[in-house]
C-alpha cells in the first residue's frame, strides 16, 4: 500500500515545484496508469515513488511518501532497490555494462542484493521464462536490438521481485513490434498478485487495456483520478492536451453524426469499440 500525502518537490535551484500537493493512495497489487502532458511531472512522480527524488536528485521534498511501512524520504537508495524497481525509456543506458551475457546481466541486481547463488539461478531462470528471453540468454546484452535490451532491463528489475514496479514510458523509444512485446509482458504482470505497477504511458489504448486506474497529472498536480473507462473517454482530456484514445475519438464523431444513440458509453479499447459500433 502506497501512501502519498502532501507531496511537493522542487528540483535543486528551481522556484517552481515539479510536484505540488499530491495526495494519493495506491493499494497493493493495483495496476495504475499515469498520463499527462509534457512537463506535467510524470517522470518526477516516478522518481518520488522510487526514492530517486529526493535521494538522487537532491532538491527539496515536502510531504510524505510511504511504501508500506517504509518512508521513502528516510530510506537509503541502495536499500530501497530490492523493494522498488524503475524502468525508463532508454534501453542502452539500463544495460549495466558489467556483465557479458543476458543471463548474468539479469543476475547483476540479485548479486548486489547478496542473495545465495542457488536463489539467483532460480530467479534468473524464472524471469527468463516469464519474459521470453530464452533464446537470448547467452548473448551479449550489447548485441541486442533496443526492444530486446528493454526486455532485458525489465527482466533485470523484475528478477529482484520488487513490491512496486514503476515504468516511465518504457516503449517510447521502441519500434511497434518491440512495443507490443513489452505490453505483452505488462499484460502478464497485470494479472500477478502482489506486485503494484505504476506505468507512465502516452499510448492510451494500451493503458486502457491493462490499468485498474488512471491518474492524470498536469502542472505537477493530480487533475483526474479514477477508472480508465471514465477518465480516458472524458472529453476533458483535451483540456490537458492529452487527447483520447482513437476509439473514443471515432465514437465522438459517430455520436455527433447521430449514427449511434447518445446514451452509449464511449469505448476506450478495441473490444469496446467493436461493441459500440455494432
Amino acid at each position: 500500500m502506497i501512501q502519498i500525502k502532501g507531496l511537493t518537490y522542487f528540483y535543486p535551484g528551481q522556484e517552481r515545484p515539479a510536484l505540488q500537493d499530491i495526495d494519493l493512495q495506491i493499494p497493493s497489487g493495483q495496476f495504475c496508469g499515469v498520463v499527462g502532458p509534457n512537463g506535467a511531472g510524470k517522470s518526477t512522480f516516478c522518481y518520488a515513488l522510487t526514492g530517486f527524488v529526493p535521494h538522487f536528485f537532491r532538491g527539496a521534498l515536502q510531504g510524505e511518501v510511504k511504501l508500506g511501512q517504509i518512508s521513502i524520504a528516510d530510506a537509503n537508495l541502495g536499500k530501497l532497490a530490492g523493494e522498488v524497481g524503475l524502468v525508463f525509456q532508454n534501453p542502452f543506458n539500463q544495460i549495466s555494462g558489467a556483465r557479458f551475457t543476458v543471463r548474468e546481466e539479469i543476475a547483476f541486481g540479485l548479486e548486489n542484493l547478496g542473495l545465495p547463488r542457488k536463489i539467483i539461478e532460480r530467479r534468473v531462470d524464472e524471469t527468463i521464462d516469464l519474459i521470453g528471453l530464452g533464446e537470448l540468454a547467452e548473448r551479449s546484452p550489447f548485441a541486442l536490438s533496443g526492444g530486446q535490451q528493454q526486455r532485458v532491463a525489465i527482466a533485470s528489475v523484475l528478477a529482484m521481485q520488487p513490491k512496486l514496479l514503476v515504468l516511465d514510458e518504457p516503449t517510447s523509444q521502441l519500434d511497434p513490434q518491440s512495443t507490443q512485446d513489452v505490453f505483452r509482458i505488462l499484460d502478464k504482470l497485470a494479472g500477478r498478485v502482489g506486485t503494484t505497477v505504476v506505468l507512465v504511458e502516452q499510448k492510451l489504448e494500451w493503458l486502457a487495456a491493462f490499468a485498474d486506474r488512471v491518474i492524470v497529472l498536469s502542472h505537477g498536480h493530480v487533475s483526474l483520478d479514477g477508472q480508465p473507462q471514465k477518465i480516458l473517454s472524458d472529453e476533458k482530456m483535451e483540456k490537458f492536451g492529452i487527447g483520447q484514445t482513437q476509439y473514443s475519438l471515432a465514437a465522438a464523431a459517430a455520436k455527433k453524426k447521430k449514427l449511434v444513440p447518445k446514451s452509449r458509453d464511449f469505448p476506450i479499447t478495441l473490444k469496446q469499440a467493436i461493441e459500440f459500433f455494432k
Partner: protein
Amino acid sequence: MRGSTLFVPGQTVIHHLHPVTKLVITFLCLVLAGTLPSLPWLLTCFVVLLLPLAAIGRILRPFLLRSFAVIAPFVISLSVIQGFFTPGQTPLFHLGSFIFTFEGWLAGLTVAARILLALGGALLLMLSTRPDRLMLALTERGMPGSLAYVVLTAIQIFPRFQERAQVIQEAQQARGLEIHVNIFRRLGLLVPLMGPLVLSSIMDTEERAMALEARAFSRPGRKTSLLLLEDSVWQRIARWTIMVAALGLIVLSFWLKFAR
C-alpha cells in the same frame, strides 16, 4: 562479446585455470623480463615458458600474432635508436656521421626481448581469461566492486563511443576540409565536434547511474556472485611456489647488482 577484448573463448586447461594463477604467471614473466641477464636467456624463457602454455590453451596462433604485432614497432625503434646511439665497438654500417654498432643493436634487441617476455605474460593472461572472471577473482580478494564495474563497463561501451565519433568524423569529411584553413580555425572546429559527444555522454550517465541504483549497486553489505571460479589445491601450491621463486629472483638480482 563484441570483440572489444583480447579474450579468445575456449575450454582448455589454461582457460580453466583460476585467474589469479594466471596473474601469478604474468607476474613471473614480468620478473623474468626484468632480471634475466641477456638476450638468449630472455628468448629461451619466452619459447620454453609461454609458447607451450599458449599451445595447450589452443591460443598459439593469436598469441604469436599479437606478440608480433606488439613487439615489431619496438624492435624497429630500438634497433634504430640503440643501434646508432648506444656505444659499441663493432660498426656494421654508417648513416652520415652516425655509426650503427653491433653491440648497440644487441642492447636494443635485448630491451625488445624484455618487453616481449613481459607483455607476453600479460597476453597469455588476457587471451585465456574472460575479463569478468579476472575482475571477480580480484574482488574476491578485496578489490572494490566499483573498480571491477568501471573496467568491465568501459570495455563494453567504448565501441559505441567509437561509432558515434565515427559518425561525427564522416559528417565532417562530407563537409570537406579546406586544406588551407588556418590551424586555429581547425582547433576551433574541435569544440562543436567533440563538445556535443561529451555533453550528451554526461547526461546519459545520469540515467546510467539511476539504472545502477535500481540494481542495488550502492547497497551496503556483501555481494554474491552467479559465476563460480574453479580453483584447486595444486593451483594454490603452484601459485605460492611461483611467487616465492619470483621474489627470490628479485632479491637475487639486486644482490648480484650491488654485491659487485
